[in-house]
């Protein structure tokens, strides 16, 4: 092998990329040729210096570190974000459920007697001055208009109730266990009687009223216990609940008067 031939393979020789035969021939030449041996040595040194100059710098190292950290953090971030979103969603769901249950407590509670409890709870509040009437001392027609405008409940109030010493006092919006109702106060011999009128579509919230959904206009529930009377009757698109510390015939008469009024109009 000539010096020229040997030197033309200098580059791959340094890289140990020569096929074995050529590698052997070059090494054989280098053993006998001092000049080529010197050239190969200096070229190797030059290459080493060049390589040593091609290093990274502080900025590049910092950029690399940032990239590694971004890679290391990203799945955790994703995980944390997922957990955060899930937590927010769960909390939101719980809060929403709590708020909804507060407005519709019957949904989460035992339904029997809830309507009775709710009705008398409001009745007691009125008696305790905690439910001031928003309209009173006005005509039946004005109370009807008030209920229609305030609650969007189309109600026909009876023009007369076949009970002695019975008069209408006033009305206000109210709710029974979160269900919006029109609250009308009557008075029988100085004893207040509460009348709650709710839309029939809300009846399913109360166990006692489930049968009202399917039955005809003469559905009625009425009873008296522990000095409390309650009468429930359907009145067209409405369900009327009458409650008070009065005899059962009073509450029943009022309920029937509402029912009769709704079907006579």
């Amino acid at each position, binding site marked *: 092998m000539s010096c*020229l031939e040997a*030197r*033309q393979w200098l*580059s*791959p020789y340094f*890289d140990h*990329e020569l096929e074995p035969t050529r590698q052997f021939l070059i090494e054989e030449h280098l053993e006998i040729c001092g000049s080529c041996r010197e*050239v190969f040595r*200096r*070229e190797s*040194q*030059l*290459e080493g*210096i*060049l*390589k*040593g*100059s*091609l*290093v*990274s*710098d502080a*900025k*590049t*190292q910092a*950029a*690399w570190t*940032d*990239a*590694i950290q*971004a*890679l*290391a953090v*990203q*799945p955790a971030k994703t995980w944390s974000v997922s957990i955060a979103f899930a937590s927010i969603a769960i909390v939101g769901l719980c809060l929403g459920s709590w708020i909804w249950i507060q407005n519709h407590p019957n949904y989460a509670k035992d339904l029997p007697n809830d309507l009775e409890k709710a009705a008398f709870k409001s009745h007691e509040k009125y008696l305790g001055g905690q439910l001031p009437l928003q309209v009173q001392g006005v005509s039946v027609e004005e109370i009807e208009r008030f209920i229609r405008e305030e609650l969007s409940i189309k109600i026909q109030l009876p023009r007369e109730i076949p009970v002695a010493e019975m008069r209408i006092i006033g009305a206000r919006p109210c709710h029974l266990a979160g269900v919006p109702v029109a609250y009308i106060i009557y008075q029988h011999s100085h004893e207040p009687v509460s009348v709650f009128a709710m839309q029939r579509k809300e009846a399913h919230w109360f166990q006692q009223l489930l049968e009202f959904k399917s039955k005809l206009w003469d559905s009625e529930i009425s009873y008296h216990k522990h000095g409390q009377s309650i009468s429930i009757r359907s009145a067209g698109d409405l369900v009327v609940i009458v409650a008070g510390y009065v005899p059962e015939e009073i509450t029943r008469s009022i309920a029937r008067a509402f029912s009769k009024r709704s079907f006579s109009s």
Partner: protein
Amino acid sequence: MKRGLQKEFLALLEPLAPAIQAYVRHLAWNPTDIPDIFQTALMNAFQKFSLFQRGTNFKAWIFKFVTHAAFNANRKFERADREDENIADTHPEAAIEKLEEDLAYHDLLHHPEILRGLMSEKVSEAVIALSPRRRGIFLLRSVGDCSYQEIAHILDIPAGTVMGELYRARQELRKKLTAYVQENRLIRKEGGHELP
């Protein structure tokens, strides 16, 4: 499970970090692209890591992502890849003869330590002046310590092309550095005396 993959990926990456950093440092045309190159390369590589066959060449695999990201970043700056016209690439013997007749190069060869005195910036300038492919090949060999086969795989070129281009890259670098040394009179010959 993703944590385990990440740990494995980073463990394989760690020993290659200095080489990858040096590679990108000198491959990127614009230094401000370096952070993006790293981020893009590492993110893309990690996303595909589940497809990487354990026991195969991770170095070549990761350098492929790094090279791809760097070449993409360079695209807006790079001139078209071109063959150097000053060095005869069809007759390497002639090129060697020419270079060896060049006294300046002869001096440089006899005083390679002169390069140590140069700011690494000058060497970087010479490297960045190489065409994109030659630069990539040279850097993969010099700082990446990649074999010709690995370089061929990373750059998706024939192994024979790697050999020829690497030879030409080295010649080009030596020519540029020789010219610099000569211009700046880093070696002087006066009456046969050579400065150390």
